[in-house]
């Protein structure tokens, strides 16, 4: 008996599966399948190629997008770094811009947009339009430019920070706590104001074809020089005008200004003496008879006046305008004609929204000081309130 044919070994079965005869198909069916499959194959080739193109395009778009994002990021980073480098190399910055302010640096002029910050790298001319204001900030000081002011800001040195005021008015605030020992100088066509730690204003105006410099001190002390000679030492609430020293002869023994002046020296200094009793409170040039007439009573009155002014200014700085109005009114009732206090009074009233009272104070100021350093501001205030008063 032969070996049983079934079940076969798996090897056998696999071999048989491989050698299985594939029957020939009906030609009609073969042709039918050919048509069907070739058409499907053609579609598949087209669709695959199209899908590939879409994928490629999509990758290209993504690639371009990522490259653009990278380029943008690098650009922003470079710009930020450049700005940081600019800021680091700038010696001061023009800030708090309102209205039209033009800065000319290396012969290039540009109008600064409102609220912008502009770093100064070289000597620059800053000019404010009649309705514009700006600030020049350095590490040592803040110089606030009033409307219609032209100021030149040269590059600072280790020894000094110098500004040249051609016309207009600046309010200078010097940080007395700064570690920088350089002095801050405001130069006008006919004077030089040197300061270390104080708040003061300097105005330059042209009256009767003559340039006049006005200096008012809010806090601390300043030295006023003319032609290189000290002509006045001003303390808080004191005012100096170049009008009063026209033709003044400067004494030969004028001392050099100390590096760190004390405000307390101002009234008792032997050199410039301030006449506190006069409405304009002008600093009397040194060597004139009025200076010799200064006595202890004057000093005492000046100290009292300074203290009252300082109190009022402190109240203003704290934002207590109501209190400031009260203190300025009290000061003026005791020392009428105190120009700086009158100006501060109508400003404080204006800030409080007391337009009519501010306008009345402004008119009073204009009557007393028709060419005062704040006469334009007072006139604008007086005029602006007229329609409201008529109503």
């Amino acid at each position, binding site marked *: 008996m032969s070996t049983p044919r079934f079940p076969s070994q798996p090897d056998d079965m696999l071999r048989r599966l491989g050698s299985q005869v594939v029957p020939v198909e009906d030609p009609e069916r073969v042709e039918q399948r050919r048509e*069907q499959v070739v*058409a499907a194959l053609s579609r598949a080739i087209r669709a695959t190629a199209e899908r*590939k193109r879409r994928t490629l395009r999509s990758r290209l778009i993504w690639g371009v997008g990522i490259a653009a994002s990278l380029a943008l990021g690098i650009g922003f980073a470079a710009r930020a770094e450049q700005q940081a480098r600019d800021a680091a190399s700038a010696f001061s910055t023009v800030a708090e811009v309102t209205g039209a302010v033009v800065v000319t640096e290396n012969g290039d002029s540009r109008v600064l947009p409102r609220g912008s910050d502009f770093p100064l790298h070289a000597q620059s001319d800053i000019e404010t339009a009649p309705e514009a204001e700006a600030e020049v900030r350095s590490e040592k000081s803040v110089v606030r430019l009033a409307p219609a002011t032209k100021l030149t800001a040269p590059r600072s040195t280790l020894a000094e920070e110098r500004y040249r005021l051609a016309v207009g008015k600046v309010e200078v605030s010097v940080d007395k706590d700064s570690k920088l020992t350089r002095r801050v100088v405001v130069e006008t066509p006919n004077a030089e104001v040197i300061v270390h730690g104080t708040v003061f204003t300097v105005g330059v105006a042209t009256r009767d074809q003559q340039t006049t410099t006005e200096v008012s001190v809010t806090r601390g002390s300043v030295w006023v020089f003319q032609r290189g000679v000290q002509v006045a030492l001003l303390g808080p609430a004191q005012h100096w005008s170049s009008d009063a020293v026209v033709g003044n002869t400067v004494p030969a023994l004028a001392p050099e200004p100390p590096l760190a002046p004390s405000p307390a020296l101002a009234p008792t200094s032997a050199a410039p003496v301030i006449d506190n009793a006069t409405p304009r409170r002008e600093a009397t040039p040194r060597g004139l008879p009025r200076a010799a007439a200064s006595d202890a009573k004057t000093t005492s009155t000046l100290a009292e006046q300074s203290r009252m002014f300082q109190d009022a200014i402190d109240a203003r700085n704290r934002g207590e305008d109501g209190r400031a109005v009260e203190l300025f009114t009290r000061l003026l009732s005791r020392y009428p004609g105190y120009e700086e206090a009158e100006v501060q009074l109508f400003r404080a009233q204006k800030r409080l929204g007391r337009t009519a009272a501010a306008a009345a104070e402004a008119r009073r100021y204009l009557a007393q000081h028709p060419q005062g350093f704040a006469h334009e501001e007072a006139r604008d205030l007086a005029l602006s309130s007229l329609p409201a008063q008529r109503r």
Partner: protein
Amino acid sequence: MPSDEELIDAVQRGDHQVASVIYERLVGVVDHTLYRVFGRREVDHDDLVQAAFEQIVVTLSRRSYARACSLRTWASSIASHVGFNALRSRRRERRILDREAGIEAEPVRAGIDVEGEASARAELERLRFQLSEMKSTHAEAVFLHDVLGHELAEIALMTQVSVSAAQSRLVRGRRELFRRLDHVAPRRKSEPS
């Protein structure tokens, strides 16, 4: 007649004019491979042929085909993959018997032992069933090597694995198939000791 390389380049360029040339070149191997997987031409044989061709186009277009073997060898690999997937899918759906019931059996040749022929068919059917039940990579390795007669190196290229991985699949596949068929797998030269 364009070479394999030219046909592949045309497909990658999206030139659909070559569809008929590709069909003529590969239809024989695709048809035979599917026939061996199923043991007959199923009612959806044309659809499976079409699916295999579409898969071939996709792999050529995606450059999955490394051009290391002939286009026909590649096509047989794709067709067996498509065939086994379809077979497994049918087993899972448990519709295979219903389908078979509807298919006209192959005519029995005259002068042949009818009982023996029926037993042989039943054995082959059992073999296909077990192959479809196995892990697909193992079943395909066994099918490509032992049924279609491809070399291990070719199988490695077709399935994109290393030769040792292909050999491992083949050995494991045989062992599993033999176990399923209640036979002990004999050691072969290609099998590691």
